[in-house]
């Protein structure tokens, strides 16, 4: 328990002192269970002007175990239209699954997702979006994603 809290405390301190990268802001980080950050893709991209919100959920084994990350879908925020983002906000990204390592951090994940959105060529949903969303679990870590498209 202490490991995850200590590490998250350190990350939080770093965010508060060094600030967040461009396009990323800290919305809410009151406890060591759930954090909210906002994400915006800067420069010329398909998502110019769109603001998204990310929800991070940590478990006691963080950073040994990966955080559960998804886009927030409510009245204010929508999931971005991306071939790796489902309409319920779940993200198909290797760094959140098999490629997770403790060298990454919350900010690192945000930057990776920012670049994933920025490099997107075509705004569309994943091909199995409807089927996935109908049967999706609440926690995206429970899904066994198959990472096939590496360039997007």
């Amino acid at each position, binding site marked *: 328990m202490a490991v995850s809290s200590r590490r998250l405390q350190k990350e939080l301190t770093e965010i508060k002192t060094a600030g967040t990268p461009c396009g990323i802001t800290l919305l809410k980080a009151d406890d060591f269970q759930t954090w909210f950050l906002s994400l915006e893709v800067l420069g010329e991209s398909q998502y110019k002007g769109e603001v998204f919100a990310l929800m991070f959920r940590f478990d006691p084994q963080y950073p040994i175990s990966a955080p559960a990350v998804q886009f927030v879908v409510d009245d204010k925020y929508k999931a971005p239209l991306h071939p790796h983002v489902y309409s319920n906000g779940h993200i198909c990204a290797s760094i959140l699954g*098999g*490629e997770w390592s403790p060298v990454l951090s919350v900010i690192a994940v945000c930057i990776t997702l920012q670049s994933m959105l920025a490099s997107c060529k075509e705004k569309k949903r994943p091909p199995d979006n409807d089927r996935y969303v109908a049967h999706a679990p609440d926690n995206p870590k429970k899904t066994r994603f198959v990472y096939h498209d590496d360039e997007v």
Partner: protein
Amino acid sequence: MCYICREEEHHDQPVEPPVAWVHPCNCTLVAHESCLLSWIQSSQQDASRAPNALKCPQCGTIYELESYNPRTLRFLNKLNSVVSMAGKVVTVAGVSCVIASFGFGVYIILTSYGAYAVQEFLGKEFFDLVLTEDPSNWPWHAFINLPLVPVSLIISRTPLFEGFPLVPLFLAWTTSPPVQTTERLMTARWRRAMTSGADTPWGPLINWPPSPLMVTFLYPFVTKLYRRYFRRFQHWVMGTEPSTGTTVRRYVWALNDDRNLQVQVDVNALPAREEGQQQQGRPQGNEEQQEVDPNGEEQEAELPQDPAAVAERTIRVTSASLGRFVGGALLIPKISNWMGAILFRLSKYSPLLRRFLAIRPPRTGAPEVFGKWFDSQPWSQMSVARQLGVGVHMALSVVGGGTKTFAECDPVWWRNSVGLGIFVLAKDCVNLLHLYLTKREIETRRVKSRSFEGVDIKELDLLNPPQNPAALPLPTVA
């Protein structure tokens, strides 16, 4: 700084008690040994991270571990994985055995039904010749053909396959030799002198009844002709025109539908009455569906077009109709046997019928076998042309007259087939009668009026109300 827990330790301020640090790879990442070990252990447990467990996330160098790994442990791990593999094999084998035994059970049922059907249809004598009751005597193709019998009986009732019932069955057996039971082999030996090898094992070229092979070939044509002419007859009786549109048939599965629906004759006969009649859901009833539509169209002006017009084109498969369909199909051999028996009885009174049915006394001689005759011919002495001629003659005879076993036997199968045809004709006529009477019933319906005694006269919507309510005639127009 440990890259896992992000704790820092300064060189001049060592932590008490001292923790072990490790630099396991080529890049600048360092970590507490305990943090790294717990990371490696947890990612080895997780299937999605296991391939990367021993790799540095930044530079990709493989971590090297040292541990107390004696031979005993290695041996036990190996043993465990071998036994697990065996366990997997056992699981697969067990499941497939269960499935296979189900399939085998189904196969046994189908085959025994097939043998029963063949016996019913071909008659006992023939059955003993070609199959006998003991499965160890059956020729190899019996085991393929027999289970197909119930399947082909059922699907021959569907519109697709009306012309092709039991084709594999007949093709195989019209030419098969009689089964070699030990009993037959012994009698054959004893009569070696009597049955000379020169006797051809096939019957004359043109024979009555025609050989089963011919009957099989002619059967589709006969059915098509029959259907066409009967359909015309039906349309004439019912007074309908044949529908021009394609019969788009949807199958509606309503297996829980317990309503006893009246026979659907036309659009107006909506399912509402609880009579003892059941709805004709069988595809045989597609003739009704076809004529239903034009009937509905004719009466469109008088009565509102009903959404049931579309429903007329669907075939409702209720539990009743499914049972009738399958049960009827499986009863065909028994029915044909009964009809054949009836015909046999009738033939005692009519020599003409006897000739037509070609009733013969049961055969007495030993059955001929193809092989024997084949071997006895001087093949090597004949020229190629003659060989060809003999071969063609043989084939034609088998097609035309059937093997001698068929030719000399009492053709139970022939009268069974004829009987079945008569039965089908009679059944179709009865159905037609049913339809016709239903139609008449609907056409002759009138609603009975009652007198107005006891009704308040002021309630009625009359133009010139009379004084005495009893004087009101039964109204035709209000």
